[in-house]
C-alpha cells in the first residue's frame, strides 16, 4: 500500500465524519454529566432509537419530505422518550450513589434494546438516501461518498449552535450556572428540576440526531447502540467529564486515531483509543480540557 497525499486526505475526511458522529453523542452525554452528575449509559440506546425511527420515517414519508423529514422528526420522538425517562426514572436517583445511577441507565439499555426488537424485529434494516446525498467525489482517483461531507456539515452546525446556546442565551447561562452550583441556582428561584429535564431532552435529541444521521451509512442492527456507547464514554472521559469542547477535541482525536490506526494496524485500530484513554486517566485524569476540581 502506498500512502500518497490524496489518500491520506480521504482518510482524514473519513476520520472527521466519524468524529462528528462521536461529538453529537458525546456532547449530550457530557452535558448530562456536567449538569446532572449522571453518566447516561443508555445514550447509545437513544441513538439506536433515532436510527430505527429514521428508518421507519424515511420509508413512510414520501416525496421531498422523506429523508429530510426523518432527520428532524426522529430526534424529536427520541427526545420525547428521553424526557419521559428523566421524569419517571432518573429524577429519583440524582441523590443516590454513582453505582446505582450507572446500573439504572445500564438497565435501560436492556429495556430499550428489547423495546426496539419488539417494535422493529431483529433483522437488519437499511435506510436509503435521497438522491442529492448519494454519489461520490473523487480525489485524484480515490472515490469518496458525498454523504460524509453532509455528516461533517451537520456536526459543525451543531457545534456552532451549541456554542451560541451556551454562551449567548439565558438558558445557556443557567446551564453553566447549575453545572457550577446547582443549589445556588435553585435558591435564586429557578426550577432546577425542570432545567434537568430540559437538559436531558436536549441531550437525547442530539443522540437521536446522530442515530438518524448515521443510519444511511450502516446496517441497523440491535447491537449498534452497544458498539457506540463505549467509544462515546471514552471520548467523554478523555475530553474531561462535563466539558463540551473537551468532548469535541477528544472526538476529533478519536476519529483520526481510528482513521489512521486502520492504515497502520488494520486489526487493532480501536486498541489505540483504549491506550489513549488509559494514558489520559493516568496522567491527566480531569481530561484534556477539564479542570482538576471536576468530578
Amino acid at each position: 500500500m502506498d500512502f500518497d497525499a490524496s489518500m491520506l486526505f480521504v482518510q482524514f475526511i473519513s476520520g472527521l465524519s466519524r468524529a462528528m458522529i462521536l461529538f453529537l453523542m458525546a456532547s449530550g452525554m457530557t452535558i448530562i454529566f456536567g449538569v446532572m452528575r449522571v453518566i447516561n449509559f443508555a445514550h447509545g440506546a437513544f441513538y439506536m432509537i433515532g436510527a430505527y425511527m429514521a428508518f421507519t420515517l424515511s420509508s413512510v414519508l414520501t416525496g421531498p419530505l422523506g429523508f429530510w423529514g426523518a432527520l428532524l422528526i426522529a430526534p424529536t420522538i427520541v427526545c420525547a422518550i428521553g424526557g419521559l425517562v428523566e421524569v419517571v426514572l432518573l429524577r429519583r436517583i440524582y441523590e443516590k450513589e454513582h453505582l446505582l445511577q450507572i446500573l439504572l441507565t445500564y438497565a435501560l439499555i436492556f429495556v430499550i434494546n428489547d423495546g426496539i426488537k419488539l417494535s422493529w424485529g431483529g433483522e437488519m434494516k437499511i435506510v436509503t438516501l435521497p438522491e442529492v446525498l448519494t454519489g461520490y467525489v473523487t480525489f485524484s482517483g480515490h472515490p469518496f461518498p458525498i454523504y460524509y461531507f453532509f455528516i461533517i456539515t451537520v456536526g459543525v452546525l451543531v457545534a456552532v449552535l451549541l456554542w451560541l446556546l451556551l454562551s449567548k442565551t439565558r438558558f445557556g447561562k443557567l446551564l453553566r450556572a447549575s453545572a457550577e452550583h446547582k443549589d445556588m441556582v435553585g435558591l435564586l428561584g429557578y426550577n432546577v428540576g425542570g432545567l434537568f429535564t430540559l437538559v436531558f431532552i436536549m441531550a437525547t435529541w442530539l443522540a437521536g440526531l446522530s442515530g438518524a444521521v448515521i443510519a444511511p451509512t450502516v446496517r441497523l442492527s440491535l447491537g449498534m447502540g452497544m458498539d457506540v456507547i463505549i467509544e462515546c464514554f471514552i471520548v467523554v472521559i478523555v475530553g474531561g467529564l462535563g466539558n463540551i469542547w473537551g468532548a469535541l477535541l477528544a472526538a476529533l482525536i478519536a476519529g483520526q486515531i481510528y482513521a489512521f490506526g486502520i492504515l497502520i494496524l488494520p486489526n487493532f485500530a480501536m486498541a489505540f483509543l483504549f491506550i489513549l484513554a488509559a494514558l489520559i486517566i493516568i496522567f491527566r485524569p480531569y481530561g484534556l480540557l477539564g479542570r482538576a476540581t471536576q468530578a
Partner: protein
Amino acid sequence: MQEVKKSSASAWLVWLILIPIFLAIPFVLEKGISQYYLYLAIKVMVWALFAMSFNLALGYGGMMSFGHAAFFGIGAYTCSLLLIKTSCPLVLAFAAATFAAAAAGLIIGYLSVRIKGIFFFATITLSFAQLAYILVFKWRSFTFGDDGIQGIPVPEMISTDETYIKYYFFALVITVICIYLLWKTVRSPFGLMLRSLRENPERAVFFGMKVENYRLIAFVISAFFSGVAGVLYAFLETAIAPDILFWSMSGEVILMSVLGGMHVFLGPAIGAAIMVLLNTFITSYTEYWPLCLGITLILIVLFFPGGVAGLIHERYTIWRKKKAT
C-alpha cells in the same frame, strides 16, 4: 458469649443440612430430572464464584472494575490453549491459568488502583480489558480469533462427555475452597482494613495505611479467583469464544453483585444464581429475557438498592430485634 455459642451451633446445623444436599444434588438432578439441570447447577457455581471474586473488588474494596471479564477470559484461554497446544497436565494448566489471571490483575491493578473516582476507575479497567479482548479477538494465529476454541481436551478424570457428575464434584470442591479462602480474606485483618478504607479513605491514610497497596492486593486476589472461575467455565462448556472477554461480560458480573447484594458476603452468589436460572427459564418462554432483566434491575435500584441478600439481611435483623424485645 452465649450468642456466639448459639450462632456456632446453628452454623454446624446449617452445614449438616447443606452437605448432604450438595452431595445429593447431582444424583437427584441427573438421574431424577435431566442432565441439563446438573449442567445448570454447575453453571450457577461458576458464575457464583466469578461474582464473589469480583465483589472482593467492588463490595469490599470499593473498586468498581469494569474489566473483570479480562481475568475470567485470560484464565479460560490460558488453560485451554495450554491443553490444546501442549501436553501439559491438568494441574499445571490450571495453575498457570490462574497465575496468568493474577498477573494480568497485577499489571492492570498496578496502573489503576491509584485512580480516584468511580468513572475513571471504571474507564481505565474497561480500557485495559478491551485491549485484552481485541488481542484475543484479532490474534488469529495464536488464539484462533473469533472462531473461538472448540473441543477443549478436558482430561478423562473430569470429562463431561457421558455424565456431569464427575465434573460437578470437581467444580464443587474448587468452588468451596475458593469461597472459603475469600471468606478468610474478608474476615482477616486485611479484609477489615480494606473495608475501613472503602468507608473512609482519608481516615485510613491518617492511620498510616498504604491505601494503594491494600487495594492492589485485593485486586490481584480478585483477579486470581476470577481466573479460577474462567477455567471452570472453559471445562464446563468445552468451547470458548472471545466474547467472554467483552465488556458486557464485565457488566453482567456487576449486575449479579448488585442484584444479589454487594454488601453481604454471599450476596453476589445469590445474584448469580438468580440471573443464571431466570435467564434459562425465562428464555424458554420468551426471547425477551433482557427486557425482564432490565425491569427487574430498575425496580431493584429504585426500591431495594441493597439487593436481594441486603433485603433478606435487613428483614432478618428487624425480626431478631422484635424477638429480642
